[in-house]
């Protein structure tokens, strides 16, 4: 019986198993190569592709939990698995094409193993329904990302970034654990469904519960870099190797969001009450008296405002993108305030378009630093005329991040603000849009330097290999196309809202 259940679980755990095997294979293969080689990169890609294949096979699997209610296999986790694999795949390509990593004297084998480990951690974060599992998944992805951030051992900036990351990470996981222990003390269980059932049936001290929630938010907020747990973000983003920064800004953020959504919606739903639908509005029913959506609203507003305002003063492109990604997390949190399937699907849509536009922006930044040896925006004057394709793509990503129509970013914002307005949060929507105006200022500052100011000194054209251009277009074209034909994406997001255990 026990074996039966484990075997049954394993049969639905192929993607994760494949990733684990990939990690081991990379570590093993490493033993046979003394010199730098791309072999482990290709293995990583093969592993990701295989995991993708097996994820696709799960597309119509009925929502369920496996391994004794530790991990859920449902459309929600499916969405994040696809997202994480896509992002992992692109990051491997980025690493191939980044001069920064190629020129470093280090072997890249462990790098790919850690990248896959981070992806695996993200998989588990998106699907765990038990707080113990959730904590382990979080630590798996955190530990890999600490090492990745400090991957250039000999670089001052890289190891400093890693140290800051590990300290902030340690503190927030400590806070989160304290929160988990309080919830365990209150409910006597770590299972999210049991927590929800207990809280719905028994009166509890709401103050203690709120303190526990705040403590847990430290863990989530740190992963998605929400204010006030964002302090590590700019430093780590600036100091880490650029592909790692891109990975942190998308994969680990997406996984953090997955965990946040699942935990809050499942653990704090009012289990006794069926979901009600009024006036075409479908809302999740949360515990009465527990005002966590309001807390999220405050955090969301603070996050995007801080991110946007501070980004204005940045000269370093990576730092600017760091603050911009803080602000983007704020927009996504806004949609969570609604606590309805519409809001969640808006979040998922935004995450998907964010994958393309943010990875695109980072890839463009990688190429700029490859060719122009600079990360400073002021030194990018006039490069729009020296490498038009690169800079036009960068412009597309910037405009998309700021949410101009005809780009994917607009669709993301449109869905988020529709969800907000639909549920009566008009002022929140207005604050969000005012933030967009602020963000425009720094996004177009980059465009200004690239296109409006004439190049100084060398004005020769700088071109890239075909591989670079293809990858750049592979990110820029979806960013535009998803701005015009986004039906399939939003359908996918709406389908993926089905979280196991929620009506």
């Amino acid at each position: 019986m026990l074996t039966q259940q484990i075997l049954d679980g394993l049969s639905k755990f192929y993607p994760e198993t494949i990733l684990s095997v990939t990690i081991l294979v990379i570590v093993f293969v490493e033993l046979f190569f003394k010199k730098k080689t791309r072999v482990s990169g290709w293995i990583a890609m093969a592993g990701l592709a295989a995991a993708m294949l097996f994820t696709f096979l799960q597309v119509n699997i009925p929502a369920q939990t496996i391994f004794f209610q530790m991990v859920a296999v449902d459309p929600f986790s499916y969405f994040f698995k696809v997202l994480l694999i896509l992002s992992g795949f692109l990051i491997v390509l980025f690493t191939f094409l980044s001069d920064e990593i190629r020129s470093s004297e280090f072997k890249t084998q462990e790098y790919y193993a850690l990248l896959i480990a981070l992806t695996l951690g993200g998989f588990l974060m998106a699907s765990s329904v038990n707080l113990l599992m959730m904590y382990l998944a979080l630590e798996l992805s955190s530990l890999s990302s600490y090492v990745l951030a400090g991957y250039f051992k000999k670089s001052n900036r890289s190891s400093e970034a890693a140290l800051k990351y590990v300290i902030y990470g340690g503190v927030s996981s400590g806070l989160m654990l304290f929160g988990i222990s309080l919830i365990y003390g209150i409910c006597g269980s770590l299972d999210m469904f049991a927590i929800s059932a207990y809280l719905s049936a028994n009166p509890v001290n709401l103050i203690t519960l709120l303190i526990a929630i705040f403590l847990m938010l430290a863990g989530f907020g740190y992963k998605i870099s929400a204010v006030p747990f964002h302090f590590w973000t700019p430093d780590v983003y600036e100091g880490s190797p650029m592909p790692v920064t891109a990975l942190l800004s998308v994969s680990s953020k997406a996984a953090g969001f997955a965990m946040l959504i699942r935990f809050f919606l499942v653990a704090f739903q009012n289990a006794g009450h069926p979901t009600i639908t009024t006036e075409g509005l479908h809302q999740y029913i949360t515990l009465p008296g527990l005002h966590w959506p309001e807390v999220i609203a405050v955090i969301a507003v603070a996050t995007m405002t801080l991110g946007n305002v501070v980004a204005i003063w940045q000269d370093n492109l990576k730092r600017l993108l760091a603050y911009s990604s803080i602000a983007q997390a704020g927009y996504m949190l806004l949609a969570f305030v609604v606590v309805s399937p519409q809001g969640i699907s808006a979040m998922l849509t935004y995450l998907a378009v964010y994958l393309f536009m943010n990875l695109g922006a980072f890839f463009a930044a990688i190429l700029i630093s490859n060719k122009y040896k600079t990360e400073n925006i002021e030194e990018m004057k006039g490069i729009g005329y020296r490498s038009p394709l690169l800079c036009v793509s960068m412009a597309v990503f910037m405009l998309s991040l700021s949410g101009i129509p005809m780009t994917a970013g607009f669709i993301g914002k449109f869905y988020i603000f529709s969800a907000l307005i639909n549920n009566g949060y008009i002022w929140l929507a207005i604050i969000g849009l005012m933030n967009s105006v602020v963000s425009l200022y720094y996004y177009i500052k980059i465009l200004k330097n690239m296109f409006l100011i004439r190049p100084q000194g060398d004005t020769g054209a700088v071109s890239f290999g075909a591989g670079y251009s293809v990858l750049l277009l592979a990110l820029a074209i979806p960013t535009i196309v998803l701005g015009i034909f986004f039906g399939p994406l939003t359908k996918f997001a709406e389908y993926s809202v089905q979280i196991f255990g929620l009506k």
Partner: protein
Amino acid sequence: MGINYFLILALLLFSIGVAGVLLRRNAIIVFMCIELMLNSVNLVFVSFSSYLGNSIGQIFVFFIMTVAAAEAAVGLAIIIALFRNKETINIDEINILKW
């Protein structure tokens, strides 16, 4: 003995840990303070486990201990890498990156 004593002790330890992280300037001591935070959480788990009479909390403690060890390994490795570059582990002097 009631559970409160244990919880208060754990809270004290946790607060010492948090204060240490915020106040101490030596990266290794900061790390030890993080460990202290984790251990105080362990204490909470164990006391709740015994109070509630279920074993889940104690299982969690094992996992925390393992993860804490892993985290310490990674953290110390990073501190060593940094020390080789900068010859200091004073957090105030680790300041190339700032806004």
